[in-house]
C-alpha cells in the first residue's frame, strides 16, 4: 500500500525528517507515536502533499505510484486521506457543499458517475450516524464555530464519506474528552477493513485502547527509533518517552 524510503524533509532550511523508512500493507493499522516536535505532523502533512515542505531525499510509493510527484488533489482521488490535526474553518462554504464537490471529483477521477442529490443525501445520512454528528452541522460552514470535538468528528465523517484506501489520522484524539474519543474511535473501527489501511499519529497511548494497532513506531527527532507491536504503546504509557530518548542517544553514540 505505502512504502516510505529514507525520507528527508526540511522547512525553511531546517531538517525535520531525517530518514524515515516505513512500510504499510493493505489492511494494517500503524500507530506513529512520539513526543512533541518529533516530526509526526510533518510526516502527515508531507504525505498529504503540503507544498511548504521541501523533500530533500527519499521516495514514497503509494499503490505503485510516486506519491511525492502527485498534487494533493490527485492523492485524494487515488484514495489517500488526511484527518487534519487542526481542521481549517472555511466561512461561506457549507459542509455539505464541500463533501459533495469532493466526492464527485473523486468519482469523476475514477470514471464513475456523480451522485445525484438524493443518492448523496442518503449516503451522508448513513455516514453521519457513524460519528454521531448532528445534522445541523451539515448546512453550517466548514468547521466554522464547531467545537474541538465536532471538528475532529467532522474529519472522520469526511473520511467515512470519501472512503479512502489509506487514511492518516493526525492527532485526531488530542483535545477530546473520553466520550468523544470513544465515538471517534468507534467510527474509525467501523471504517477499518481488509482493503484499507490506517496510520494513527498520536501523542498519547489512550486512543490505541480503542483503535488497536498492528504496529507501533516511535518517532523521535525526525527518525523512527523503535518499532514494535501494540505492547510498545503500553510500555510508552508506563515509562514515558525518556527511556526511548536514552535508547536513541545510545543508538546515535554507537554509530
Amino acid at each position, binding site marked *: 500500500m505505502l512504502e516510505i524510503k529514507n525520507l528527508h524533509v526540511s522547512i525553511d532550511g531546517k531538517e525535520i525528517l531525517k530518514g524515515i523508512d516505513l512500510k504499510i500493507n493493505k489492511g494494517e493499522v500503524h500507530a506513529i507515536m512520539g513526543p512533541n516536535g518529533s516530526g509526526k505532523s510533518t510526516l502527515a502533512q508531507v504525505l*498529504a*502533499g*503540503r*507544498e511548504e515542505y521541501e523533500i530533500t531525499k527519499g521516495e514514497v510509493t503509494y499503490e505503485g505510484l510516486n506519491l511525492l510527484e502527485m*498534487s*494533493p*488533489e490527485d*492523492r*485524494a*482521488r487515488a484514495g489517500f*486521506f*488526511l484527518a*487534519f490535526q487542526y*481542521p*481549517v474553518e*472555511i*466561512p*461561506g*462554504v457549507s459542509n455539505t*457543499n*464541500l*463533501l459533495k*464537490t*469532493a*466526492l464527485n*471529483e*473523486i468519482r469523476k*477521477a475514477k470514471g464513475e458517475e456523480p451522485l445525484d442529490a438524493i443518492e448523496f443525501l442518503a449516503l451522508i445520512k448513513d455516514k453521519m450516524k457513524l460519528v454521531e454528528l448532528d445534522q445541523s452541522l451539515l448546512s453550517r*460552514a*466548514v468547521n466554522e464555530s464547531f467545537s474541538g470535538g465536532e471538528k475532529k468528528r467532522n474529519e472522520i465523517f*469526511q473520511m467515512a464519506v*470519501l472512503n479512502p484506501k489509506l487514511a492518516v489520522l493526525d492527532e485526531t484524539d488530542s483535545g477530546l474528552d473520553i466520550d468523544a474519543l470513544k465515538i471517534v474511535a468507534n467510527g474509525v473501527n467501523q471504517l477499518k477493513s481488509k482493503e484499507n489501511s490506517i496510520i494513527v499519529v498520536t501523542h498519547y497511548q489512550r486512543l490505541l485502547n480503542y483503535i488497536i494497532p498492528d504496529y507501533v513506531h516511535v518517532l523521535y527527532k525526525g527518525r523512527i527509533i523503535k518499532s514494535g507491536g501494540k505492547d510498545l504503546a503500553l510500555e510508552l504509557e508506563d515509562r514515558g518517552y525518556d527511556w526511548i530518548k536514552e535508547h536513541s542517544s545510545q543508538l546515535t553514540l554507537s554509530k
Partner: protein
Amino acid sequence: MDNILNIKKWYLDNFEIFQNSLNGESLKPINQLRKDAMAKFSELSFPTIKDEEWKYTNITPLFKHSFKPAASISEIENAQVDQFTFDDLKGYLAVFVNGIYSKDLSRLENLPKEVVISSLEDAINSYHLAVQKYFSKYADYKQHIFTSLNTAFTKDGAFIHIPDGKILEDPVHILFITNSNGEKILSQPRNLFSVGKNSQVKILEHFVSIDHGIYFTNSVSEISAGENAVVDHVKLQEESKNAFHIHRIEVEQERNSNFTSHSISLGGIISRNDCNIRFNGEGGEGTLNGLYLTDGEQLYDTHTMIDHAKPHCTSHEHYKGILDDKSRGVFNGKVMVRKDAQKTNAFQENNNIILSAEALVNTKPQLEIFADDVKCTHGATIGQLDMDSMFYLKSRGIGKVTARAILIHAFASDIIKSIPLKSIKSYIESILTERFNKQFQQ
C-alpha cells in the same frame, strides 16, 4: 490642460444645444437650476489626483473623448430588453435608452393608486410635489463638478413616488440601457425616489450596455426615506468594459427609517461611485453593502459617507472586492458621528481578495467621532485566497480551479446573501460561477 479646457468648452457648447432643444420647457423654474449648475460647472475644476477625494483615481482618460447627449430615443427591440430582465423578478420595469425614457419598452401597468413610477421629465412637467420638495436638495452640485454637469443637463431619469402608508410589494426594476452603436454617448439619468412615511419599496437600478462601446454614464440618484419607511436599493452596474461610469447616490433618512444599499459592480473601465447617507432623525438604520469584481485594466472606486447627525442610529457597511489582472480598486468609507449623535452604532469593513500579482487596492476606512457614547468599529483587509483553506479543499480531492472558485464564492457569500432581491442573488452567483468555474455549483 488644453485638453481639459477644450472638454469644458465642449460641454458648455453642448449645453447651448441642449437649451435650444428644450423649447417651451426652458420657461419652467427648473431651468434656472440648470443654468446655475452649468455656471458652477464652468467655475469648478475637474478633479485630479491632487484632490484628496480622487487621490487614487486618475480620471484623465475621460477627457480623451467628446461625449455627446443622445438627441433622440434609440430604436431597441423588446427582445433586446429581455436579455437584461430576470424571469424570476416580477415587478415594474422602467426602461431608459441612452438616458432617455422609453414608454414603449417600460412595463408599468397596474400601479397602485397614488404610486408614481415615471420619467423624471413627466414628474417635472406635472409639477409633482415631490420634485419641488426634494429635487436637488441632497445632491449638492456646488461642490461636485460631475453633479453640476448632471444637474445642468437635467431632463430625464427615473422618478418614483410612494405616498405615505403604502407598501409596494413588487420591486421596481429601472433599466438603463446604453446603445452607443459606435457613438460616444453621454447618458446622464437623474433619478429621484421619494418614499413616504410608513411606506416600503424595493428598487433596482441596473446599468447595462448593448455593445462594448465607449460611452459615459454620469448619473445622480436622490432618495428620501420618510419616517419609518423601508427602502431597499440595489444597484447592478454592468456597463460596457470600455465605458466610464460615475454615479452619485444621496440618501436622506428620516426618523426610524430603514435603508439598505447593495452595490454590485462589474463593468466600466473607470467607475466612480459615491453613496452617502444622512440620518436626519433618531432610530434610523442604514446598510451599505457592496461587491466589486474587476479584471483587465478596470478601475473601480467607491466613496461613501455615513453621516450620523442624530442619536440612536445604526449603520452597517461592508464592501468586498475581488480583483484580477491589472485592475485596481479604491475604497474610501467615512463614518461621521456628530456631537449630539449619542448611542450611535456603526460598523464598517472593507475586504479585498487579490487574484493576480498586478492587481492593487487602496482602502481607507475612516471614523470621525465627536460624540462620546458610541459603538463604532472599522477595518480593512487586502489579501490572497487563504492557502490553508486551499490545501484543505485540495486534500479532499477538489482540484485547484474548483477550490479557487469555492473560496471566491465563500468570500463573496455574505454580501450576496444580504441582497434583498432573490433573483439578483442567484444572478450574481451565476456570474461568479461562470467567471471562475464552469462546473462548480452552489
